[in-house]
């Protein structure tokens, strides 16, 4: 086997039996004999558990003793223990990029029945990894300082909670809210699940809860600067150091922040999009309007009057899934909160006017929360009628609102007259959030919300940007707040570090080769590659802090002028070659 090698390297190979998990299927004696002959390999040793403390100690001692240029560990998948086992190698004095893990467990021993087959494949994998190890180079991670402040976008419950948590941890917070007041939608609600009490019961315990103190907590906190009627217009920079421009009523404000929390929330589906529901009729209202009516009545006393003539409605019909679970005219997703709030409102009406008939028309009831079942039973006991079936049409006949619907369980089509119709509108992604996601290079999900990040990702992998509340999908108040606290604690974790490191596996430009065509800049979603003029020539320039190391730029470069450290051509091709050539020898 010939390998493209410039200078002799000294490679150490350590194979892990994983307490027979691997040796059951792979003949280690054969592997050792084979590996000893591989180019560059000077030491081959076996261990029973390299991920254990003793395993790492063994590795670090070996590395210190032998002074390797690179180390290959053939063991489990690098996705689980790369940093653990690699930690031993780093302990022993190597750079972490001079470490390569060959996956002979998940992708070999555990797949192939036949011991000989598995052993042959393990050899190929190891040959490939050794060939790669021979090309690895030490890399420096880039240190970045984290500016000790946070930008929170959105002043609803999620944004306020995140702002409070971060400010209480001692960091400066800028809370930007588009409207002229804090509180968001939660503060417009009269009651929430499960206590069926005031709209912010989950923020403070019910007994002491009045609406204002929470907002006052935010307003009066000396670490929080609240910017009302303001909008973020531009964000530049990367992890730990972002420059933000904000349009405020007093002109433009510029700030530098270390982390960002997006709490822009969701918006309510506009029911006038569904012509068949006659939302333009006075007595057809949305649940949000009903909330306002209940609130107004609470504040000012009086009764629940229907809009057309002020009469107290004798029949009220709730229509569920308005704009939700409807791929044709609305949103395909379930809005999660509507069943619960409609039941709450139905009970409220029943409580005040026991003589009023209340119907809820639903497809299926969804309340994936603790206590929902009891809530539902309570509503049934209070006399709320649940009718399964979609409402086809709402129209006016002789001055009356008529519902054409169906009772699926009874199998009968119905036409009901209703004094008041309430449309249970769902939550959908906010346009402003979509724009923000674009600025910050955050992917969206199929419903247009910001995509959920895998919870396993570190704050650094999230690039210091955290999402809270409904910007990430429909959520109840309590869950938005939990979300906000989690995001805040992630942000605090990063802020507390003060500085962090960004991996060295980033793009690198060969300025000689680069002709400044701009293809890489076009391919880069993170604005990391830009074209600059240097010595009178256009060349590409990469910001290592913005670069995510994915390599779209490199694969698209016609001149091979841009490459990704740790995944350079010279580091990939020998690996491919070694794997394929090994097979030749066997055949030959």
């Amino acid at each position, binding site marked *: 086997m010939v390998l493209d090698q410039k200078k002799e390297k000294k490679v150490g190979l350590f194979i892990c039996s994983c307490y027979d998990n691997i040796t059951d299927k792979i003949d280690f004696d054969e592997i050792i004999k084979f590996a000893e002959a591989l180019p560059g390999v000077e030491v081959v040793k076996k261990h029973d558990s390299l991920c254990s403390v003793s395993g790492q100690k063994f590795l670090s001692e070996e590395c210190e003793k032998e002074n390797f240029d690179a180390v290959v560990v053939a063991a489990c*998948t690098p996705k689980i223990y790369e940093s653990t086992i690699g930690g031993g190698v780093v302990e022993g004095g190597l750079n972490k990029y001079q470490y390569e893990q060959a996956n002979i*467990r998940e992708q070999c021993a555990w*797949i*192939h029945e036949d011991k000989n087959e598995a052993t042959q494949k393990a050899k190929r994998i190891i040959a490939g990894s050794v060939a790669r190890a021979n090309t690895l180079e030490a890399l420096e991670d880039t240190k970045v300082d984290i500016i000790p402040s946070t930008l929170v976008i959105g002043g609803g419950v999620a944004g306020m909670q995140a702002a409070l948590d971060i400010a209480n941890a001692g960091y400066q917070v800028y809370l930007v809210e588009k409207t002229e007041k804090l509180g968001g939608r939660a503060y417009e609600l009269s009651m929430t699940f499960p206590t069926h009490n005031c709209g912010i019961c989950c923020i403070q315990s019910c007994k002491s809860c009045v609406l204002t103190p929470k907002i006052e907590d935010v307003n009066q906190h000396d670490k929080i600067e609240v910017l009302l009627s303001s909008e973020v217009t531009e964000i530049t920079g990367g992890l730990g150091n972002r420059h933000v421009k904000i349009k405020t009523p007093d002109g433009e404000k510029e700030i530098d922040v270390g982390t960002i929390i997006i709490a822009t929330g969701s918006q309510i589906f506009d029911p006038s999009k569904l012509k068949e529901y006659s939302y333009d009729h006075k007595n057809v209202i949305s649940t949000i309007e009903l909330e306002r009516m209940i609130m107004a009545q609470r504040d000012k006393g009086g009764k629940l009057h229907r809009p057309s003539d002020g009469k107290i409605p004798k029949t009220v019909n709730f229509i569920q899934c308005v704009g939700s679970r409807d791929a044709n005219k609305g949103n395909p997703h379930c809005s999660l909160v509507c069943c619960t709030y409609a039941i709450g409102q139905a009970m409220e009406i029943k409580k005040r006017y026991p003589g009023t008939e209340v119907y809820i028309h639903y497809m299926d009831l969804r309340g994936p929360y603790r206590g929902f079942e009891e809530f539902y039973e309570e509503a049934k006991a209070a006399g709320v009628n649940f009718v399964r079936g979609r409402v086809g049409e709402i129209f006016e006949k002789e001055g009356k609102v008529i519902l054409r619907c169906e009772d699926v369980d009874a199998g009968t089509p119905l036409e009901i007259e209703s004094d008041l119709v309430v449309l249970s509108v769902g939550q959908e992604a906010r346009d402003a959030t979509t724009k923000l996601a674009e600025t910050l290079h955050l992917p969206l999900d199929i419903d247009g919300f910001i995509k959920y990040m895998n919870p396993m990702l570190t704050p650094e992998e999230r690039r210091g940007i955290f999402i809270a509340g409904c910007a990430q999908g429909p959520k109840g108040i309590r869950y938005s707040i939990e979300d906000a606290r989690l995001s805040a604690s992630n942000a605090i974790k990063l802020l507390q570090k003060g500085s962090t490191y960004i991996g060295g596996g980033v793009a690198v430009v060969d300025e000689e080769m680069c002709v400044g065509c701009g293809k890489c800049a076009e391919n880069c979603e993170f604005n990391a590659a830009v074209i600059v003029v240097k010595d009178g020539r256009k060349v590409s320039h990469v910001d290592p802090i913005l670069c995510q190391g*994915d390599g779209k730029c490199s694969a698209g470069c016609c001149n091979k002028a841009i490459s990704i450290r740790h995944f350079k051509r010279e580091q990939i091709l020998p690996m491919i070659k070694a794997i394929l*050539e090994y097979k030749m020898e066997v055949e030959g």
Partner: protein
Amino acid sequence: MILMLLRRLGGGRLTEFEPKIIAFSCNWCSYTSADLAGINRYKYPSCVNIIRFMCSGRIEPEFIMKAFEYGADGVMVTGCKLDDCHYISGNLRAKERIETTQQILDMLGLGSGRLRGEWLSASEAEKFAQTMNEFVEQIKALGPNPLGSSK
């Protein structure tokens, strides 16, 4: 090369043909689905060799062509689900590049069927194994890479 081609196609070689497959897999989803296949002991032929990249967007047509030059009979590129790349759109770029490379393979007479892209979520271990099984069968039907291992 013609001689080698004849040699490879002739005699009893065909019946014992065991293809050489290289799979380029992205770190975030598809490599994980391969790991999960191992954890669940879903079987696929041992001739599949996986090389890990951070993102399928890094995979250059040159890597694929070189793999064929070095004697691969089939090349599989796996990435995250198409709207789910960890780096937003790497797999979309990869998809375009695969399609162009397939055209080149057709032009060279190697056949576009020797190259395939597959987009898998981290949990689709069974699909990973199934895809590999299918692909190996497909390559077996196509026969050995006529370029053989020229080096």
